[in-house]
């Protein structure tokens, strides 16, 4: 039970990535004498994290699959049957997620520079949040994974309730309770696995569980427990109602992080945990995944059409777009290697791409709100006259969101559809109709906010400052880069999902590699 021998060593890069935000949070707590120094330190921290995450993306060797950049102490908490390890590592699935977190962390910090209320605490929480999310995406010990998963709740709670708008206390509490409930189920699932198999090593679990070890409770039950935890986070209908409230009431940067990376923890967990450890159960349950996915897509899209609050609209569109993740995952039921790989790669790609696109959307919506102090769509209109640069960012985010080719949104959607259609043609066909409704609400939103005659109230609005243009520009570049050449990402993702595909299709072609 000693885990796989190749997964040992200590590289240090990932440890730095995960713990430097905490170090910066501490520094901010101790050092600065005024708010500007806090901001400077936070920006510096964000840059360091961005550079490190880009570095991870670049140094990850695409030539060999499996986990790399491993940081592991075998005896962190050395109780024999309950050994908890310090174990970090990345594979093709997590590397892009790390990049996403570094990128959106930077964007969030830049978007927060206008915060004037309790600046010190604010940035401390943001940095802790970022560190926790990095932890989730790199932890390979199940308990560590869970600790980071829970840790993320604390900064979120304070960020929403102290710096939010509207019914912020209600929304913050709702968010925490929902996630907590989900994680309670998840913890039971984790413990059940441990009792059966005797390890928390996430890299060893797949082989052990699939090897036919007797589980203390039925595999389906463990699957269900774990899945609920992730389903709340993604979110899967009907567990989604925390999302519109939390997104709407959170401050801009927190909405960016919430939609951009926190939701992806759900999808990441589904692939990293449920699909990896119990691919056969996942394949058996694929009908449920695709059904819920179609509901998410269509229900989310139709409800989005009715929203009149810009942020709420974007929030509901997120629910719709996360449905594509589920639909992509449902391709796991394919007997063919191609469709399964394409579907799972598409699902992962959708997570990354939605993170950047919705990040950009919340960012620009936040900038509009900062200027107009309203998010009520009928009050807006003609804004392109006064704030064309923000308008361009907003429109690009919108077009990417509706899956326009040339943006990463298209690459993700087409892969999801191709993969899932091969297994579930009718249901996927229904979901494809989602792209029409999406185009409808996006363009209608653009028409009502950016175009048409301008309300005289907006005569004095000023366009984005140079500082604001940096995060907008960063996200646009990423959206276009991975849209024009998606192979940069899909090559990684397909390596990440390869073991899962091999396990479900038992394809000798892959297993022999």
């Amino acid at each position: 039970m000693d885990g796989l021998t190749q997964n040992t060593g200590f590289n240090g890069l990932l440890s730095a990535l995960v713990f430097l935000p905490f170090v910066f949070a501490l520094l901010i707590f101790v050092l600065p004498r005024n708010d500007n120094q806090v901001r400077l330190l936070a920006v510096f921290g964000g840059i360091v994290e961005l550079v490190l995450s880009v570095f991870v993306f670049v140094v990850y060797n695409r030539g060999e699959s499996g986990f790399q950049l491993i940081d592991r102490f075998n005896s962190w908490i050395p109780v024999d049957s309950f050994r908890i390890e310090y174990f970090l590592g990345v594979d093709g699935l997590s590397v892009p997620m790390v990049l996403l977190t570094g990128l959106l962390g930077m964007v969030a910090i830049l978007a927060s520079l206008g915060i004037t209320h309790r600046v010190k605490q604010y940035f401390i929480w943001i940095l802790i949040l970022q560190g926790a999310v990095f932890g989730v995406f790199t932890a390979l010990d199940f308990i560590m994974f869970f600790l980071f998963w829970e840790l993320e709740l604390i900064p979120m709670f304070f960020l929403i309730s102290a710096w939010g708008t509207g019914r912020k206390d209600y929304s913050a509490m709702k968010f925490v309770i929902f996630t907590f409930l989900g994680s309670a189920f998840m913890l039971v699932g984790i413990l059940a696995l441990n009792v059966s198999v005797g390890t928390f090593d996430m890299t060893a679990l797949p082989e052990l569980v699939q090897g036919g070890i007797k589980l203390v409770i039925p595999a389906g039950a463990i699957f269900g427990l774990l899945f609920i935890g992730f389903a709340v986070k993604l979110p899967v209908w009907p567990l989604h109602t925390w999302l519109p409230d939390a997104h709407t009431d959170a401050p801009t940067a927190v909405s960016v992080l919430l939609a951009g990376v926190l939701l992806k923890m759900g999808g990441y967990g589904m692939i990293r945990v449920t699909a990896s450890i119990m691919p056969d159960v996942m394949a058996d349950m694929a009908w449920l995944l695709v059904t819920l996915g179609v509901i998410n897509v269509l229900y989310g899209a139709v409800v989005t059409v009715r929203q009149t609050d810009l942020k709420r609209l974007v929030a509901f569109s997120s629910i719709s777009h996360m449905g594509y993740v589920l639909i992509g995952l449902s391709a796991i039921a394919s007997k063919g290697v191609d469709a399964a790989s394409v579907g799972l790669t598409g699902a992962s790609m959708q997570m990354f791409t939605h993170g950047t696109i919705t990040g950009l959307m919340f960012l620009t919506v936040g900038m509009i709100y900062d200027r107009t102090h309203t998010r009520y769509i009928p009050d807006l209109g003609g804004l392109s006259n006064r704030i064309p640069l923000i308008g361009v960012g907003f429109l690009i985010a919108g077009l990417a969101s509706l899956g326009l080719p040339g943006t990463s949104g298209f690459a993700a959607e087409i892969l999801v559809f191709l993969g899932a259609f091969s297994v579930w043609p009718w249901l996927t066909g229904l979901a494809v109709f989602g792209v029409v409704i999406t185009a409808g609400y996006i363009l209608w939103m653009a028409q009502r906010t950016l175009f048409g005659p301008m309300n005289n109230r907006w005569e004095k609005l000023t366009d984005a400052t140079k500082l604001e243009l940096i995060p907008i520009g960063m996200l646009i570049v990423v959206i276009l880069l991975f849209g024009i050449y998606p192979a940069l990402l899909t090559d990684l993702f397909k390596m990440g999902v390869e073991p899962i595909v091999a396990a479900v299709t038992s394809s000798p072609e892959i297993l022999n590699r």
Partner: protein
Amino acid sequence: MINELATWFIFFCPLLAFIIIGMVVWPFVGKKSKVSGYLTIAALLSSTILSFWALGSVIQNGHALEFESHNWLKIQNVDINFGIMLDGLTTIMLVVVNSVSLLVQIYSTGYMKHDGGYSRYFTYMSLFTASMIGLVLASNLIQMFVFWELVGASSYLLIGFWFNKPAAAAAAKKAFLVTRLGDFGFLLAILYLFFNSEAFISNGLNPFEVIDVNNAVALGVISSSVAGWVAIGMFAGAMGKSAQVPFHTWLPDAMEGPTPVSALIHAATMVAAGIFLVARFFPLFEASKEVMMVVALVGGVTAIFAASIGLVQNDIKRVLAYSTISQLGFMMLALGVGAYSAAIFHLFTHAFFKALLFLTAGSVSHSVGGTFDMRYMGGLRRLMPWTYGAVMVGGLSLSGIFPMAGFWSKDEILNHAWHSSTVVSDVVFWLALAAAFMTAFYMFRAVFMTFEGSYKGGAKSDPDIEISVEVTPHESPKTMVIPLIILSIATLLVGWLVNPLTNIGSIPMHWFSEFVHVGDGHEKVLAFNKMLAAISSLIALLGILLAYLIYVSNFGIFKSLQKTTSGVYKLLMSKYYFDELYEDVIVKQIFYSKLAAGLDLLDKSFIDGIVRTIDRSGRNIGRLIAQLQTGQLQGYGVVTSFGVLLMFGIYLIFR
């Protein structure tokens, strides 16, 4: 012989123009910088030259040029490659798109001269042209879809160019949405092909390569019924882009864009994309008789349906818009009866004479102060001789009068429909003939209302337009007139010169018809049918005569036909109530007010309601239990004693 890089540059030139104007000129040099126009023109001039080189190379080569394709995405055995397919069809499309676009850009430098968004305009124009070129070059289905959608997106930007006008913003959205509805089918067709990917891959084919898809039926990789479903899906996409009934409603509204935009996207490019798509996958369509019948019928119905609406429009651009829909119907019905080369020939000639007509409409409107309403024009013949001449050439061509380009291509379509011997082809032949009559009538109704009679004041008389400066009608500037002249010459020549009845010098007989065939050559080129040509010409002349009698002559009976009270007139004027059906009934009443509102309510009250109920009951239970904590020691003592007794009792019972 053109090489691959040079061919790619046909696409890269406008793309580079887009990037440079969009990222450098517009933000840094100026919103109204002349440089933008010049850059676009330079880029398109280069592309046009390269296109002619490509055309020459394919002619010289005798068959399609083949280039290596490049991998865009690879997952396991799934390969998505981007490459160039350079055959007769592509090169013809390249020449049409580039040369028309070039002329439109030259014209635009005059037409848009005073517009505040001059640089923005050329940014979008370059992007649009690049997308369209990318579409016709594509050798891969996904690649095609990519550019297909980009054409849609850039047309969205162009139609909504004057985004402050609510009508323009709405029209842009409508164009994108209606075409996307068709793309839903196109996307399903792609997915269905991939559904059969194992059959492709085991035969060494790729389900996304255009050539492989086209060969799949003949090689027995997919059955003809699979091919039929794929073709139907693609046809849905084509109907959207080419504005076939019932997807036609976006095109007339799209006239809200600047007129040169209409000339480009509604004559030579975007709307032709649907025809191009069907032509590109023609072998796939031909594999299924039923699909071909559907294509022919949709085309035939569209041709007459749109022509009938065109009869009563007062806005000159709307007349041309419905005329475009109708002509696209002609092309579609030609494809449906198997007349592949005739359809492409008509696409080719139509691109020139319709661009010409749109540009003349722009010229007229420019001259009368900005209105497009023909009721406020009239008498412009003497004032605008060049424009008038251009309109006559274009109008006669549209009506199908010898020796204009339109005569030759329309005749070929009618000839094929006549010779094809199915029930459907008989029906569409008569539909087409009737539509030809209407076409001649509405076109010359427009010509007479605009150029004959007395001048009725232009924009000044139009209550819908507020003008700040008084304009007297005048001929347009050179930058606008020169493209008109070039297009007029093209309209006079291209018909008989590129597809001649006998060998003319080095141009062989039926050159065009032979050339667009990639080399399969199974469609016989029909001999020119003199009888049919005479009949269709006569019908067109009758249409023109009727228009003359009603709108120019002063014969009482005919004059009274101008009256606009009859029920038929109302039906036509309201465009058969399609917009009302779609927008008011389906979108507003059914979708928005019922379905979306219902689900929104369900979400708020029911699903979130359950959450709130759980929340509330949790609190209530907590409060209930909290009430037990009274703080009185006696009470606790009683409960504890009972508890001990109870446990003891249980112990005794279950011992």
